Each structure stands twice: as C-alpha cells, then as structure tokens.
C-alpha cells in the first residue's frame, strides 16, 4: 500500500497550493512594493523548482546530468538577461 500511495506528489501538490496562496496575499494584504516583490519572486522560483522536480520528474532518470545542466544554464542566462537589461535600461541611464 505504501508504495502505491504517491506521498511525494500529494505533499508537492499541497505545498504548491500553499505557495500560490502566499503569492495571492500580496494582492489582498496591504504591504510595501519591496516586500510584495520579494514575496512574489521567492514563491515564483520555489514554485518553478517544485514543479520541475516533483511533477516533471527532473532528476529521476539516467540523464539527470544533462537535464540539470540545461536548467542551470537557462537560469544563468535568464538572470544575466534580466540584470543586464536593468543595468542598461534603468540603473545606468
């Protein structure tokens, strides 16, 4: 019975709902812009990681090396793009 019950997936599902609820609070509660953005960014990244690992099965197969390399590569490029854009379009204008 234990093997049949997808405990990891159920926990993951509950946790992702919690993350969504926390993100929604930013809309319903009155808080400063900085606090709001911080909460949104953190919940967004945790949520994305959770989906990848628990529901898209990253890391469960032999080619997990290739999969994680790709994810980290994508992450680096996304961050460079965002911060590079902020630098040229906002901070150093």
């Amino acid at each position, binding site marked *: 019975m234990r093997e049949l019950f997808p405990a990891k997936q159920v926990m993951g599902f509950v946790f992702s709902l919690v993350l969504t609820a926390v993100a929604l609070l930013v809309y319903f509660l009155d808080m400063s812009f900085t606090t709001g953005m911080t909460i949104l960014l953190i919940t967004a990244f945790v949520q994305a990681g959770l989906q990848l690992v628990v529901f898209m099965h990253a890391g469960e197969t032999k*080619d997990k090396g*290739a999969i994680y390399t*790709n994810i980290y*590569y*994508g992450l*680096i*490029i996304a961050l*460079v*793009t965002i911060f*590079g*854009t902020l*630098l*040229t*379009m906002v901070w*150093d*204008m």
Partner: protein
Amino acid sequence: MDFFDRFAIPHASPAIYASMVAIVLTSVAIVAGLTYFKKWGYLWREWLTTVDHKRIGIMYLLSALLMLFRGGVDAIMMRAQLAAPESKLLDAQHYNEIFTTHGVVMILFMAMPFIIGFMNFVVPLQIGARDVAFPRLNAISFWLFFMGAMLFNISFVVGGSPDAGWTSYFPLAGNEFSESVGTNYYMIAIQIAGIGTLMTGINFMTTILKMRAPGMTLMKMPMFTWSSLITNAIIVFAFPVLTVLLAMGTMDRLFGTQFFTTENGGMDMLWANFFWVWGHPEVYILILPAFGIYSQVISTFARRNLYGYKSMVWSMVIISLLSFLVWVHHFFTMGQGALANSIFSITTMAIAVPTGVKIFNWLLTLWKGKIVITTPMLYSMLFIPLFTIGGVTGVMLGMSAADYQYHNTMFLVAHFHMVIIPGVVFAMLAGLTFYWPKMFGFMLNERIGKLTAWIIAISTLVAFMPMFFTGLDGQARRMYTYSEATGFGPLNMISFVGALGLAAGFVLLVYNVYYSTRYASRDISADPWDARTLEWATHTPVPSYNFAVEPQVSSEEPLWDAKKNGHELFKGEYKEIHMPNNSGVPFIMSSIFFVWGFSFVFSLWIPLILATIGIFACMTHRSFEKDHGHHISVKEIEETEEKLRGA
C-alpha cells in the same frame, strides 16, 4: 468594395504590378505543369507528407536557395540605386521596404533554413541514427518555417511590405509611424517561422543527446554534430525571447497595449534591447554550424584529423555562453552610461578569443596536412582571410567609445556582410558542393565550381570593401541617396560592380547545377571525397532507414578507422527496422497557420478564430491518432542492400 481596399498596396509602382503578374503566371505554370505531368500524387506522397529527415533537409535547402535569390534581387536593386548620387531609380519608401525585406529574408528565410537543412540531412547520418528523435515534429518545423516565409514574401503584393528595417525598432514600427499592415506581416510571419525553429532546437538537442551510435561518446562526436548541438542549445534559449517580443509587438500594434510606446509608461528602447538579446545569439546560431562544415571540409581535404579537437569543442561551449552576454553592443549610442557600455565592450572583445582559437585550429590543421584543393576546400580556404577582415572590424565596432563614429554607417554594413558572406554563405556553398553527391547521386562540376568560388570571393571584396571607406567618411546606412558633393559616388559605383559580380557568381552556380545534372557521371562511389565520418559509410542514394546495421564507433572518425585501421563498422545481422509513417497533418496544420497569420495581419477576426480552431483540431487529431509506424522486414532490407550495392 471597402472590404477589399485593405489589400491594396499603399505605395505601388510598375515594378510591383509586374511582380504580381509574374507571381500569378508562375503559380499557374506550376499548377499546370504538375497536372500535365501527373505529378500531384508524387508530390504529396514523396514530399509534402514526408517525415524523412533527408527529404526535409533537401526541402529546407531548396527553400533557402529560393530565398537567396529573392534577397539577392533586393540587394541588386539597392546597390543600383546607390551606384550614383541623386539617383531616381527608387524613392525613399521603396528603398525602405527593400532593405527591410532583404534583411529579414537573408537572415531568417535564407541563412536559417540553410543551416537547418544541413543539420537535417547530415546530423542523423553522422551519428549513425535512423531519423531524428521526433520525425513528425520535424515535418511541422519545416512546414511552419515554409508558411511563415511565404506569408512574409507575399506582403509586397498584398497590403504592402514592412519598412521599419529588419530590426523593426519602435517607435518607428508602431502604428503612428508605420501605418500599413507591413509591420504586422513582420510580427506574424516571423512568429510562425520562429515557432518552427524553436521546435527544431528541441528536436535536434534530443536527437544528438539520445540517439548516437554505440561507442560515440560526446567527445567522439564529429565536429559538425558538436556545432549543431551547441547551436540548438542557443536556439532553445534565445528563440523564446523573440517569440515573446513579437507577441508584445503584435499587441502594441493591434490591441493598443503600450509596451514600446513613448508615453503611458511604455519604453521604446526596450524593443531594441530584447531584439538584440535574441539577435546576437542568432548570429552565432548562423555561424557555428558554418564553422562545423568548415571543420569537416578542412579535415577531409587536409587528409588528417582536426587539430585541437578539444579546444574546438570548448571554444564553442564558451561562445554559446558569451553570445548571451554581449547584446548591448548593438546600441552603445542609446544613451546609457559608461559603466554599462564598458561591461559590454569587454564581453564583446572576450568573444573574439574563442573565435580566434578556432581560426588557429584550422590553420594548424592545414599546416601539417596534405592539402587537396576541391571546390568545398577552396571555399574554406577563401573563408579564412575574408572572415578575418569581418572579425577584426567587429572588434573595432565593439569598442564602445569608437562605435559612436561607426554606428549606423556603411562601415557597419560592410562589417556584417564580411562576416556573414564568407562565414555563412561560403560555408553553405561549400557544404552544398560537398554533400551534393550524397543527396543527388552525382557530383557538381569541379571546374565551374572553382570558378564560381573565385568569382564570389573576389566580388565580395569588391562589393563590400568600399563601404568601409564611405562609412568612415560618414555615409549613413539605410539612406536612399546622397548628394554629389559628398564624393561617395565612385566608391559606391565600385560596390555596385561587386554586387553584379556576386549575381554572376550565383547564376554560375545555377548553371553548374543544370550542367552537372545533364552531363555528370552517375557512376560514383558512396564516398567520393575519401571522407572520414559516418554519413559517407552508407550507400548513395541513402536508403530510407540510413544504415541497415547500426554502426560501431570508437573514435571521432569512424569511417577513416574502418578504411585505414581495420575497424569493423557494421557488426551483426539485419534485424527488422521500425520506421515512422508519413503524415499529411504537418502540412495541413501549417497551411492553416498560414491562413491564421494572414487573418491576423489584416485583423480579420472571424477567419482568425476559425483557423485557431483548425489548428487545435489538428493537435487533437494527433493526440488520439493510433500510429505505430511501420516495420521494414529483413527480406526487404536484404533486397534493398543488394540493389544498392550492385548499383
């Protein structure tokens, strides 16, 4: 009649009306020809529904050649207009439309299908696979690209061409300054083709990572396969930016959003920023497979293994990362501070280092080699010095302070043509000549081929070197004319002569195809160049299953091992082979995409909704379809192999 007014051309001319007539006549001729020779069934069964990577590759290459001529005619018109001061051949509006079309067609509908065509034809053969990982998806990629290209190409006769440059910067590309539907075509047609390219990226990454022959570890992959892997990784990371950007641009133009407007919090330069976040990696998407082809050709005809295999691989990996860190060098003059410009200047110069490493590797391969000059080798040898001119001027442009002098002048135009033509176009012509016998079973004439290579190389110099000088003297880019007093006249005339030379070179290429089709011997071996990698280890013509027995690999040159060191390539017996079935759905779905795009361009919402439903219907059909492919029996394999060996 009101309804039809929207399809009229806002800025017509006799040349455009003549083109309309020509398009109609050609279409009628094609339909009549197909009917008369009863080729409709053949076309549908063998080409429109195929999922075979070799045929899809050939269709990509044919489309690319077609687009090369479309873009080339645009180029000749521009050079003719600029050949003399105060010329009245074209007016400003036509000139704008022509350079926009030329840029988009050459980059997205000529260079891209060229490299993807070679990846399709060569990569599965080179890694000893029977097809790509997702053959059906591959067909969808091709047909989406094709429909996107066709949609873009009809713009000049239905509704008007885009005219805001191939970079389509806002606010110029916004509704206020670009009133015609031209820029809608730009947004939607590139979107459709781009989705196809993104799927190609995923498909080939999977293919290369998962389907290599036994024994072919990553560090034993042939160099073209390596360059394709890296290229497809860049595609997967860069193209989503373009997809989102075009969607935002479309919304600004059609639904009144304010992403790139100059008021209400819009940011016009954000378009330029994200365009180049995609655009710079895009130039490396074009050049890396070209480098891969040069590597194959140079090691084949220097008759030795590639010098510095590992450093070649690492320099490509580094290029792939750095190519995402340099985009701001395309708009150093936007007005940002010295800090941002300095950072991007440094990353730009850094990227020249791995590129230089590759040049030295080729030189050192040649150094110890026994060089055989064939047409593909001639292109590769001409590429090295010419490309260096483009590369060095690129470093000059990369210095942000100096770029205030060069930016948006003919100097820039000369730079990127000196990298793209020797870098990409020469590689494609080298690859075409090199792989021609594998594709079509006969060789292109070597004497005409070499003559073509020389004409194209010399004309490239004649056409583009003068632009460096007029650019430094201040001739601006994208200006349709200049006054006599500027003194730009003579150099521009020389440049026009070079452009005519290039045209002559391409005509000679076509003549070579015609001549060789008629006269070349069909009695050639499967390995006419004495090459080194697996694509030459199977028969010509390549059977649908590529390899009857899966090849065994123990180095990056398995065929050479087999020829010289007694390596046994094909161990074991014939087994039943499982192959995918043909399908008409990719073609049908992409045709619906064409209707979808056309409706979007003209804001015809009801056809748009119907087309959207049609697209989803195709996808639903695929989800519920039971298609397990077909099996080729051992007996059938034996017969095919017998026949091909005899031939």
